[in-house]
């Protein structure tokens, strides 16, 4: 109960939830207790298997068939959820609580018009059809959808991802609920779209005074959206408190470790290496006596294995479940802070030179220019980060570079030699020099082959090794990616995501690759695992002097690992330069907007820049500069008529913008211009 006596929006007390898997009950939530006050925004953060989605589903009583609440209580706006009859539960869902989850395209019924789906929210409360329709229009306007009339008549597949999520949010808030649950609502959306959706949520929350339970694995997003946060590990709430306090003064070894895993501004791979958390994330429902974190904790002592730590109150609504919370910040590092990084000799010939690479697809009679004249040089031992949102062409570019997709124009040179555009035409030597690590480790490895078989085959084709020589090399390779020998005889589906990715990396490094394309290699991994993989990649680069083309939508990661950065928009290079320069400025207006959208866990956030409209379709690129339809620094007619050439505005820094660099430097030093246009 809060000071004024109003019931909390959500109150969980000692909630125990178990799933029945293969005949045995496995505990997924262990005594979870927290409260969300009215109009408060509470974040729940954790990695895979920690139970955050289970918490959300328990709250609305939508657990899968094999899940049940073993003990504890759930109260929403003072009502005991577990004691409700089915009719009462339906009433609760219709009026008091809403849930928004990942992937809006799946959350909307593809066969029903948007208008009808939104109106349903009203009709279920007995409101007549006409009024329901009016209120639907109203609520869509509230989420800043411009052409409401037309959107109501459309089907979900006719809307963009960002628009769909707005509709889902509109449906959620239409009932003016006491509690709004958001489960990874922006994962999978582009950076700029994500920023807009989050802004919208924050705005609506302030307007409606709704309580929010915000579930995410991303601490940066939580920091932006929430006042308080709870850290979940293996189904137990290990620390809880105001967001800023948790970030400045974490008092649980897991929280400390987690924060150290996240790349922070200004920290680069050569000074300020990411730390990792040793061990593996526990499986869902694993038996964990004593402290759930004991197996991986650097401060562990005898008592941690035997007794469950109680909740220690640390003042200011800050609490921690650790026997040794006062020593938390002394948690020893696993990886030393400063490690050598590869040195790059820029006087030599570039390893890879790409000139005017073009790739046009033909679909439904439209010509889609996915890559429109991209040029770059990559030197041995360097990491070039490739950044862009959907439609930027970054994946297509990488595939064209590798020959997986035949480019429609331009050329690729390796070591000064032009290589044939198609993979099948390339010599085995060229094939061996360019390798790739994919995003999704599940589909990147053949699930019917054992790890040993996968690596042996790679060794044979990429290093020409077989027999005893191959076996020896295999063991060395496994060691270099820290893959224990006992994993060699298993199939990939028995390995965790992080381990699979290590195998994929080992495979890429079986021969002596000169350039390895890393296509979102850590996007599908948990934060702590991501840190380990990034460290591995940096280590291998130092040892083998290999170059990386590192593709990612996560700017924080790109900044950490890249020496130089390329920013792509609609298949064209907007900016290309040393990582720090691109990040610090002066930078291209698009880069500026991208960076402002990035939720960070550090202080001193940039002023949010809202971009007008949506990303244009590659089939109909805007005339002149492709970015002009959304640019907040648009000069005027010149941007609409002439495409700005990519010129070297500073030493090693290229940009495609009509605004001279000095002007940009001046403008960006001031406060950023903010416009709030409606989404169309």
């Amino acid at each position, binding site marked *: 109960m809060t000071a004024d006596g109003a019931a909390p929006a959500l109150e969980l007390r000692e909630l125990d939830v178990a799933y029945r898997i293969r005949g045995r009950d496995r505990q997924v939530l262990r005594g979870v207790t927290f409260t969300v006050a009215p109009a408060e925004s509470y974040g729940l953060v954790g990695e895979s298997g920690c139970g955050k989605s289970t918490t959300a589903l328990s709250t609305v009583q939508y657990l899968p068939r094999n899940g049940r609440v073993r003990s504890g209580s759930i109260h929403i706006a003072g009502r005991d959820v577990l004691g409700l009859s089915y009719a009462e539960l339906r009433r609760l869902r219709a009026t008091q609580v809403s849930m928004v989850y990942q992937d809006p395209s799946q959350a909307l019924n593809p066969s029903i018009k948007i208008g009808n789906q939104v109106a349903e929210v009203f009709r279920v409360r007995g409101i007549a059809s006409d009024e329901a329709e009016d209120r639907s229009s109203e609520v869509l306007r509230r989420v800043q959808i411009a052409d409401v009339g037309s959107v109501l008549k459309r089907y979900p597949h006719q809307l963009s991802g960002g628009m769909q999520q707005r509709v889902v949010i509109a449906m959620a808030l239409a009932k003016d609920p006491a509690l709004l649950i958001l489960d990874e609502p922006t994962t999978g959306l582009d950076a700029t779209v994500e920023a807009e959706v989050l802004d919208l949520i924050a705005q609506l929350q302030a307007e409606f005074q709704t309580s929010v339970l915000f579930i995410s694995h991303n601490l940066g997003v939580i920091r932006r959206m929430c006042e308080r946060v709870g850290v979940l590990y293996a189904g137990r709430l290990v620390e809880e408190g105001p967001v800023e306090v948790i970030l400045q003064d974490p008092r649980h070894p897991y929280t400390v470790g987690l924060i150290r895993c996240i790349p922070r501004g200004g920290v680069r791979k050569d000074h300020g290496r990411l730390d990792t958390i040793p061990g593996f994330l526990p499986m869902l429902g694993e038996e964990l006596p004593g402290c759930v974190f004991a197996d991986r904790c650097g401060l562990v002592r005898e008592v941690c294995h035997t007794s469950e730590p109680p909740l220690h109150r640390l003042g200011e609504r800050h609490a921690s479940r650790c026997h040794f919370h006062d020593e938390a910040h002394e948690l020893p590092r696993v990886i030393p802070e400063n490690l050598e990084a590869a040195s790059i000799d820029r006087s030599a010939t570039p390893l890879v030179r790409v000139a005017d690479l073009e790739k046009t697809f033909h679909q439904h009679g439209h010509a889609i220019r996915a890559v429109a004249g991209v040029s770059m040089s990559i030197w041995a031992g360097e990491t070039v980060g490739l950044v862009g949102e959907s439609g930027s062409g970054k994946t297509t570019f990488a595939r064209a570079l590798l020959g997986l997709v035949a480019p429609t124009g331009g050329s690729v040179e390796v070591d000064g030699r032009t290589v044939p555009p198609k*993979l099948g035409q390339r010599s085995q030597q060229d094939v*061996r020099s*360019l390798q790739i690590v994919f995003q999704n480790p599940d*589909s*990147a490895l*053949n699930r019917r082959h*054992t790890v040993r078989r996968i690596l042996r085959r790679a060794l044979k*084709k*990429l290093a020409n090794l077989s027999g005893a020589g191959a076996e020896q090399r295999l063991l060395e390779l496994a060691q270099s990616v820290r893959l224990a020998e006992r994993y060699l005889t298993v*199939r990939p589906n028995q390995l965790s995501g992080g381990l699979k990715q290590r195998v994929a990396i080992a495979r890429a490094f079986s021969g002596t690759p000169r350039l390895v394309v890393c296509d979102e290699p850590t996007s599908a991994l948990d934060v702590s695992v991501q840190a380990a993989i990034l460290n591995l990649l940096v280590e291998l680069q130092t040892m083998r002097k290999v170059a990386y083309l590192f593709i990612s939508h996560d700017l924080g990661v790109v900044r950490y690992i890249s020496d130089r950065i390329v920013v792509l928009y609609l298949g064209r290079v907007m900016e290309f330069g040393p990582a720090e320069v691109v990040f610090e400025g002066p930078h291209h207006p698009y880069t500026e907007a991208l960076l402002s959208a990035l939720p960070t866990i550090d202080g001193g956030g940039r002023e949010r820049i809202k971009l007008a409209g949506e990303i244009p379709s590659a089939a109909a690129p805007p005339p002149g500069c492709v970015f002009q339809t959304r640019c907040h620094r648009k000069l005027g007619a010149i941007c609409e008529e002439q495409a700005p050439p990519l010129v070297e505005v500073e030493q090693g820094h290229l940009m495609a913008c009509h605004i001279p660099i000095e002007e940009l430097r001046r403008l960006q030093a001031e406060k950023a211009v903010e416009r709030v246009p409606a989404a169309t």
Partner: protein
Amino acid sequence: MSTVSVAAPRPSEARIARRETLQQLLRSPTFIVGIAIVGFWVFCALFGSSVTPHDPQDQSFTPLLKPGGNHFFGTDTLGRDVFSRVLVGASDILKVAPLATLLGIAGGTVIGLVTGYFRGIVDDAVSRVVDAWLALPLIVIAVTALVALGVSTATLIVVIGVVFMPIVSRTVRAAVLAERQLEYVQAARLRGERAPYVMFVEILPNVMAPIIVEATVRLGYAIFAVAGLTFLGFGPQPPSPDWAAQVSENYQLVNDTAHQGNYWTVLFPGAAVASMIVGVNLIADAIARVLQR
């Protein structure tokens, strides 16, 4: 560089997984019942005359006796013991159906792999032909072909096998299309692997599960087809005790309502066919369930 010793080989995890699958199968009731039924008929077909109470071809008994007494299932028009004939009636089916299925699966898999992997013109052309082929009911094609080629065990196997190929290729092609999107296929290409390697070593093992399921389903349909064709007169001819042949010989008697349509002459052989197919389908279902894990 320190020396790294090569580890001694251990029983691979793959072998352990296969053993576990087998154990799971053996515990499934559908599998056990299915194997029991099919096994029973196989046994009878193999040991034929030694297990029957009377000689299946012996015509010395009173014709059209109702079931009971000495004749468990009665006798047929020519005075033969129906029970004995039913016991040995599986042999032709058991000869033709599995081989036809094998042929269909092998051919269909190759077609499916090639069209699914290469796409493009090859796929378009072959798919159109397959579409046209699938427009015709199996029976129609089989009858036409058998009239042209003449009836024998060999032609039955070939005709049914070939008719199955397009159907199997559809399933395989769909599975291959899904697989080839996955990155491990691209990783293979990036190693410089050639097309046959990618198709047969990388992709094929991953589509084995649907192929095996399809094979077991096809086996049921093969038995269906053999029985149906025999009924139409395209299989073993009288005096063979083949089940469908028995039905074909005796079904006109059904009109004789005075004697209850002499139902026993056709009901029991019919039930035998049904039981065989049900048995095969139960096995198919059990295997499919286990492979889904």
